[in-house]
């Protein structure tokens, strides 16, 4: 009996625990699919042509208003940026409000209000909605632009452009758009320093007059508001908005390149290459192939799919790799992109191209296609959580004249796509042999190996403004903000700073000069201010002696002696300084930063110095150390002018100051090597030696 009871207890216990047991070895089955319902919207149009779409959603006590201006943009050319500068001007004043009033009104109700070149957006809590509409409608319809504000925006934009010159992703986006669409297409243009400088107030006012018009505007209202309420408010605030005339320009359709080409933007500090493979594609949401291209792209790189799994999970080249089609009624594009370490840049390009080709050549497995479809369908459902999605569906339906059931049949149409349709689509739209491959990275480590992907074996070099250049001819682009003054200042600091320099009262330097196997000894003495002696001795005999004292210069040697005058006197006066650069300004020397070039394989700033008597010296300062590494001067010689090149090497420190231990000089066919044996400072040098 007892045992029986025990068994029952055990049995019961066991049963319960079996019941609760999970089969962990298999993924659980999905529950029946929920019904996907696309939320409703209401649309109406004002007499002035403003089209309004209302999506009512009471989850949050907020309402947002978003105006999209639908027009075909014009090429802005040398004035690129008019649209974006105009959008910055919106909010800086209307016929009846000052900028401060607008900002104060918007911030007081904690609203947001912002414009871009193709629209304007505002949102706030429901209880402030009418106050918001009052300002929003005012800046949309009645903005007045002032020069003072334009100048502020110009300064900001120039700063922004400067900052983005160091950002590899901005560089890649700009240059890639120029390569994909061409610089003469509005989609291939981007703002540069010079284009921003060209923009005038008139251009902005015209842009505003031309495009901020109700007849090309779609207004989406989303949130805690019903259609009747919305209609009343919009009639009230936008009823008076005046129509305008907007003409569409015509463009040449950008075409993919005839064969794949490789372009590079050299960014020497890069530790990672930003890779972008792209070409223009003539496709938009209303195109018959829209859904097919979406499915095809998703397989390739529209999530954690082929590109990601290959480049990240298999090869560990990158943190992520993706691709997408951009759908646009004028011209769209395809883009595959990733960022990888320098050493695997070429392999990563190879793997992307391989995946693009594979999609064309092999039919996709049913199971993989099924997963991609599931992913897309699930994400479609997830996107419906946001009422903004419903608004964009409504606007797309109207704008692209889509069939009424376009979105309600969306899932069915994804479901129906077959592997052979994917392959056909890939053959038509995935073009590994007609791509622009752009890499922003460290050319010296990556360029050579990228050549193999270019059909003609060539690399196109571009600067950050997408201008092509020949790397063997042209110096590197100078960083913004670096000037001749800043480099000279940095040089002074690099050799030890003004404090240490000013402590030097006299300086004696002893060394050797070797010329064609002959050894000469060299002795140079400085006493500040203004006393200088340089002597070159061979076998105890003075070969050449130069002296500066009391503003007078003399040279003597085996050929006799003479006074130094004019440019020669000017020159010895500079030689009598340890840091002649410190005297440039007071003595009227002009300096100009020319470019970054290379000295012994390292980057150096090249500065041209013009003396008051117009003698030119070109000095090179190391980008890395700030020190002067090379100098070129023009010398008169019996055969005319020849340039004398001095390279400064092996710096050592004495009393906190850096001096080159070696100098290599060449003038015409002659070369000298100077090596310094000793530098001594402040030994109380007597004045008499300079007599």
């Amino acid at each position, binding site marked *: 009996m007892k045992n029986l009871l025990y068994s029952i207890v055990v049995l019961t216990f066991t049963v319960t625990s079996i019941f609760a047991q999970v089969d962990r070895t298999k993924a659980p089955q999905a529950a029946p*699919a929920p019904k996907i319902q696309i939320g409703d919207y209401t649309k109406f149009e004002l007499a002035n042509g403003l089209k309004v779409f209302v999506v009512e959603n009471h989850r949050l006590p907020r309402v947002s208003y978003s105006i999209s201006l639908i027009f075909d943009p014009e090429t802005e050319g040398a004035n690129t940026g008019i649209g974006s500068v105009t959008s910055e001007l919106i909010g800086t004043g209307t016929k009846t409000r000052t900028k401060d009033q607008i900002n104060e009104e918007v*911030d007081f109700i*904690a609203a947001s209000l912002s414009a871009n070149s193709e629209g304007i957006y505002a949102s706030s809590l429901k209880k402030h909605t009418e106050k918001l509409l009052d300002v929003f409608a005012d800046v949309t319809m009645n903005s007045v632009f002032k020069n003072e504000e334009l100048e502020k925006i110009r300064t900001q934009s120039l700063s*922004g452009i400067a900052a*983005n010159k160091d*950002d590899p992703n901005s560089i890649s986006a700009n240059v890639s758009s120029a390569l994909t669409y061409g610089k003469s297409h509005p989609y291939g243009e981007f*703002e540069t320093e010079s284009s921003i400088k060209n923009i005038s107030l008139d251009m902005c006012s015209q842009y505003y007059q031309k495009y901020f018009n109700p007849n090309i505007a779609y207004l989406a209202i989303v949130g805690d508001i019903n259609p009747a309420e919305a209609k009343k408010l919009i009639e009230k605030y936008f009823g008076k908005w005046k129509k305008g005339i907007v003409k569409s320009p015509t463009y040449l359709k950008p075409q993919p390149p005839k064969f794949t080409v490789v372009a590079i933007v050299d960014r020497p500090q890069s530790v990672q290459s930003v890779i972008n493979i792209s070409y223009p594609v003539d496709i938009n949401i209303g195109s018959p192939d829209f859904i097919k291209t979406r499915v095809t792209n998703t397989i390739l790189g529209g999530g*954690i799919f082929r590109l990601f799994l290959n480049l990240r999970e298999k090869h560990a080249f990158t*943190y992520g790799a993706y691709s997408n089609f951009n759908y646009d009624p004028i011209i769209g594009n395809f883009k595959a992109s990733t960022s990888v370490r320098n050493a695997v840049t070429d392999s990563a390009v190879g793997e992307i191209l391989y995946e693009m080709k594979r999609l064309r050549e092999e039919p996709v497995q049913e199971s993989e296609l099924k*997963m991609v479809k599931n992913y897309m369908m699930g994400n479609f459902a997830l996107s419906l959580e946001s009422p903004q999605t419903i608004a964009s569906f409504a606007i797309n339906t109207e704008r692209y004249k889509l069939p009424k059931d376009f979105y309600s049949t969306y899932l069915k149409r994804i479901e129906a796509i077959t592997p052979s349709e994917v392959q056909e689509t890939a053959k038509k739209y995935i073009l590994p042999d007609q791509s622009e491959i752009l890499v922003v990275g460290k050319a010296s480590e990556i360029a050579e190996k990228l050549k193999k992907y270019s059909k003609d074996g060539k690399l196109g070099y571009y600067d950050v403004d997408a201008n092509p250049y020949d790397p063997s001819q042209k110096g590197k682009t100078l960083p913004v903000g670096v000037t001749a003054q800043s480099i000279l200042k940095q040089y002074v600091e690099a050799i030890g700073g003004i404090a240490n320099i000013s402590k030097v009262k006299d300086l004696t330097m002893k060394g050797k000069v070797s010329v064609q196997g002959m050894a000469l000894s060299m002795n140079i003495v400085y006493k500040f201010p203004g006393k200088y002696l340089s002597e070159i001795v061979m076998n105890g005999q003075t070969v050449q002696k130069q002296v500066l004292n009391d503003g007078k210069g003399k040279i003597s040697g085996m050929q006799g002696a003479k006074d130094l005058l004019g440019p020669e006197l000017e020159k010895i006066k500079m030689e009598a300084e340890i840091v002649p650069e410190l005297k440039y300004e007071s003595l009227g020397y002009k300096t100009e930063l020319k470019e970054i070039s290379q000295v012994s394989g390292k980057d150096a700033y090249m500065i041209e110095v013009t003396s008051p008597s117009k003698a030119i010296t070109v000095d090179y300062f190391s980008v890395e150390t700030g020190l002067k590494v090379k100098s070129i001067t023009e010398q008169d010689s019996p055969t005319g002018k020849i340039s004398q090149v001095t390279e400064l090497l092996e710096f050592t420190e004495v009393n906190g100051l850096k001096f080159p231990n070696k100098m290599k000089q060449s003038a015409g066919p002659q070369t000298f090597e100077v090596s310094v044996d000793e530098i001594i400072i402040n030994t109380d040098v007597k004045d008499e030696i300079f007599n």
Partner: protein
Amino acid sequence: MKKVKTLLLLGFLLFISGSGSFAQSGKIEFKEFDLKNGLHVILHQNNSTPTVAINLMYHVGSKNEKSDRTGFAHFFEHLMFEGSENIDRGAYFKYVQNAGGNNNASTSFDVTQYYEVLPSNQLELGLWLESERMLHLRIDSTGIETQRKVVKEERKQSLENRPYGRLLPEVFSNSFKVHPYRWMPIGEAQYIDQARNSEFMDFYKHFYVPENAVLVIAGDIQIEALTIMVKKYFEDIPNGNHEIFRPKEKEPLQTSEIKVNAYDKVQLPVVLYAYHIPAMGTPDSYSLDMLQKWMAGGKSSQLYKSLVDQQQIAMQVGAIPFSLEDAGLFIAYGFANLGKKAEDLDAAINTEIEKAKASNISDSDFQKIKNQIENDFYSRNSTMQGISSTLANFYIYFKNTNLINTEIQKYQQITKEDIKRVANQYLKPENRLVLYYLPESFKK
């Protein structure tokens, strides 16, 4: 289409927001309970769209790391996608995508969170996936080697190859000398290379235990049925039954201003102040949030008006009350306009801060601040994923999930005088780091 200016700001702010600020919302109903193993569960039902968000937050972040293993918690987050006894390497992503969902994870100074957003009929799959990796994660050396390289690329992408990438590491390493907040969640690359494979399992066994986690599920659910299902998948996972390692270091009071110059390949100097402030959830941290709104909330704020609009010395300015579990930093910064000097920008920011400390807040400004707080409170949590994350945060940090509904009261108690007091109490030179983040060409 042709915007240039915003990119920079966004990059900077995104990076900052990656680490643990929290949101508020209107009335959010929820049920919460503990499983026998100590796992805390929070369920929020909202059947308006057939979507569900699963958020599993572990109370471990970079501050739980050893100083010779920085970056470990984040690296480990990557390993959590490697597989389990029943999930093959690489299959984790496949299950989620095949179900039509999205998933991801993030690691901050204080917590690591994992989430899935799924169509609601796939909810059980999400529970299986998360419970699998909590119960018996499986990692092999191939996975570890792969992720070592992947994380190095992540580090380059977010830090080394990006202008201003070292800005925040400079802020934290100079502001904190003792507390583990002195290193960033991304850590230093070499430590992950030095780690032995067994260390990863030790870390897992120590921190990835049910009693150190909170599971939040929000969206199209039925509370009763889901409660049973959650128990089915999670109740059998053994608890760790040990004390979880939490850093004990107390950052000593800073007594004199710290000045640091850092150099990068950038064009515009940045001047940044970081003041020590109390940890999140303290009364003063709410006052400091309001101070931030007063000083830098919008284009009508004094900092923007003076520096960007009137003086045009800065391209951008901002202030961020950066509150963490053990301590916080109040950050004020400006990007200099082209050709403007860091020293001048510094002086200008300082002047505005001193002005703010000296002035009294007007009634209208105080109302503006309150409106901004109210706006934030009612506007966040627009998605199930957002709500689940907020609920998880409030539980982990304060063991008070209902703050999602009541936190606004904490702000309502703050007076104008409180804001002025915290400004004067914390925004003192001796309490701050002054960081000049300069173009490399300025280097001496």
